[in-house]
């Protein structure tokens, strides 16, 4: 079975531009979460979607937005990019959204903002 797939794998953008990152969950998984991992740090929670509804949002500015589609895939959008947005963006899927539903991570999208 295919794992969580993310695209693109690498991306270079200029300050002020907009970016869209995409994620396809494991088949049958209904929840998708997004995390930002800055170099040298642990991942930080951005969003969680379950059954196409936003379940939670981390401490990120409104420049960050996301959505989940009827096929459970998801997009993360970031507007007005800043240098500090450079990071590895991880998508994780899970069967459900409960504490005992383990997350399965993709290999991430490496975003560099110049």
């Amino acid at each position, binding site marked *: 079975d295919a794992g969580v797939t993310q695209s693109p794998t690498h991306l270079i953008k200029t300050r002020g531009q907009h970016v869209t990152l995409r994620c396809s969950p494991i088949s049958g998984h209904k929840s998708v979460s997004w995390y930002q991992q800055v170099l040298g740090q642990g991942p930080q929670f951005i969003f969680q979607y379950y059954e196409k509804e936003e379940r939670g949002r981390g401490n990120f500015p409104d420049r960050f937005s996301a959505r989940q589609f009827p096929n459970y895939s998801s997009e993360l959008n970031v507007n007005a990019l800043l240098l500090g947005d450079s990071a590895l963006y*991880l998508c994780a899927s899970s069967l459900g959204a409960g504490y005992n539903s*383990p*997350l399965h991570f993709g290999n991430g999208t490496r975003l560099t903002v110049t």
Partner: protein
Amino acid sequence: TQLLEQSPQFLSIQEGENLTVYCNSSSVFSSLQWYRQEPGEGPVLLVTVVTGGEVKKLKRLTFQFGDARKDSSLHITAAQPGDTGLYLCAGAEVNAGNMLTFGGGTRLMVKP
């Protein structure tokens, strides 16, 4: 926002040595998970602990959840070069489902 503090941040040891990584918080978690992350890849789940005092073993790895569900440890016996990687603990806050708070990670290097 709950914080998870991991220690040590870096660890370089010889093959065959034992080591322990700690994950501490002042707050209670519903569950705590340990992940390993290789360069260029996403974190891979090693174990989930949910009961205070719980101990789980995975081959040479032993995971423990503190009695008060505020802290956890990962012990590796007879480390091997293949254990090299970034080890991350992550906690699920009470009533937060599986939205995780991650520690800063412990970068382990095992030299042959």
